[in-house]
């Protein structure tokens, strides 16, 4: 019974992780840039939901609609003005660049919101739902459904829309895409915008479950990375499966080894996978 409950908890968590990782994976896969800012974007989205609810009474699930365009614009502008100049630079430089940007953003959040952990609590609370012996809080359940929905939406955009197909084309073969008339620079900016959007939109969802603080950014970033390795780069289904897998592994891991060893556990998992399959569980080789 306990096993089922833990599995359910893990899947709920995993749905959120999938949402976190899909944007990160997209940017990494298409631009070959590791966006260290991703974790801070998530936290910023959380604050947006927190204040929208606290000050304006906007329900956190609705604030996703506000977050989405704002974060898309932020990501688009950032890529267009800064990161695009460094797109062809060695890994170390692009990493250091986004690291520097992250220091600025997280410090700005620290100065504005302080390091205190805030908790977004809905009033009135939504209660719980029971499926047989499995009990799940309703807010978490909705958060998971929305997270998976967002991820699914991203998948649809990539597979069905014109711009989505251009993004996929650039990911597969940049030169060929450029020859076929795709504006690579614009595709990069849109991709980065979409990645940022996914981070910013998952912020309100995570704020329903976890405390919000600038200090939590790196942990989200780490999870996004592990998921990419699990699921392979640049594919939404990969991020989905990787996210669910990590959620389940973490749930059982904290049962067996204690929650304080979550990072160690995912690191060991990460190393094992990288050593056995450097291209990820589902991924194909190609993006270093």
């Amino acid at each position, binding site marked *: 019974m306990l096993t089922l409950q833990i599995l359910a908890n893990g899947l709920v968590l995993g749905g959120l992780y999938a949402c976190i990782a899909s944007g990160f994976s997209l940017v990494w896969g298409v631009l070959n840039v590791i966006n260290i800012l991703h974790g801070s974007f998530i936290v910023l989205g959380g604050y947006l939901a927190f204040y929208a609810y606290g000050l304006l009474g906007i329900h956190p699930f609705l604030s996703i609609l506000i977050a989405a365009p704002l974060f898309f614009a932020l990501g688009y502008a950032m890529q267009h003005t800064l990161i695009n*100049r460094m797109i062809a630079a060695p890994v170390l430089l692009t990493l*250091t660049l986004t*690291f*520097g940007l992250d220091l*600025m953003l997280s*410090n700005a959040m620290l100065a504005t919101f302080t390091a205190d952990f805030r908790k977004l609590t809905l009033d009135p609370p939504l209660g719980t739902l029971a499926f047989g012996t499995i009990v799940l809080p309703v807010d978490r359940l909705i958060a998971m459904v929305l997270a998976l929905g967002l991820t699914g939406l991203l998948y649809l955009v990539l597979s069905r829309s014109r711009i989505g197909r251009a993004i996929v084309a650039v990911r597969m073969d940049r030169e060929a895409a450029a020859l076929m008339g795709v504006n690579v620079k614009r595709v990069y900016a849109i991709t980065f915008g979409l990645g940022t959007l996914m981070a910013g939109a998952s912020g309100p969802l995570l704020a329903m479950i976890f405390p919000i603080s600038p200090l939590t950014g790196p942990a989200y970033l780490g999870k996004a990375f592990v998921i990419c390795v699990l699921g392979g780069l640049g594919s939404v289904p990969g991020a989905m499966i990787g996210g669910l897998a990590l959620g389940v592994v973490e749930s059982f891991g904290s049962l067996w080894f204690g929650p304080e060893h979550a990072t160690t556990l995912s690191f060991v998992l*990460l190393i094992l996978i990288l050593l056995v399959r450097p291209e990820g569980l589902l991924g194909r080789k190609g993006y270093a």
Partner: protein
Amino acid sequence: MRREALVAATLFALVGLFPLVGEAYWLRLGTTMLMYGVLAMSWNFIGGMAGYPSFAVAAFFGLGAYSGAVAQKFGAPAGLAWCIAAASALVFATLLGLALLRLRGHYFAIASLVVADVLRELVNSATDLTGGGMGLNLPVPAMSSIDAQAAFFFYAMLALATITFAATLLAARSKLGFGLRCIQQNESAADMLGVDTTLYKVCAFALSAVFVGAAGAIYASWVHYIEPPDVFDVLYSVKAIVMVLLGGAGSLFGPLLGAAVFLSLEELVWRKFIDVHTGVLGLLIVLLVMFLPKGLLSLSQRLPWAGKRP
């Protein structure tokens, strides 16, 4: 090689005169600068020479700090504790390197970045040995005055920096350094030419750890108190990288120059913008990467008086 050794010896000897003229504040700054120099020169082995974007400096620093502190807790004298710390960092990096150095690019970078978090978590939970989140107090050295203590740690760090520089010089002017340059330029071609890439990379990784481990231990003794978030701070990794980038990656004196310039900037930023100093640090990093990716030494080559590079 002789000329460079001579320049360096003069430089380190001059720095050695520092305590004679400096007051406490400057001595503290000098010790920090030497420590930064050790971190930067160490990162240069793996990041500059071999071209592997390692973020593991923080892990080695924290490991060294805790190894030294625990050794001192069990009664080891400071000098012995520092050697133990260096050795444990060396062994750890060798084993870790055998696993991690099979990865390339982003995978290696992030995997190395996570190591510090993992160690911090382990140290946090090993409360009996490390004091966990409460931190660990170290014995204060039995010395007559505060000034004498400050000078003692300054010279300890100076000695370590000298050794690190000597190791850099020896590596850069030997088969090891040459092989690492080959790996940095094209690893599979190096492999084809007979370079045992695994061995060379592990050597570079171990070299990037051993002196950092010692620096962490000296730091722990110096400040008398350490806690996990302090010594496993990822900023140690980032700072080491930034200092090398600032000075010029792969060069001999670049990391030292970078350390000096970086510390000056940091000190200014600290004083003027205490609340947002990491943000300003971030801005510095962004500007550096965008406008000066080859470092300050690259500027000198544009000047008319600059000699031809050898």
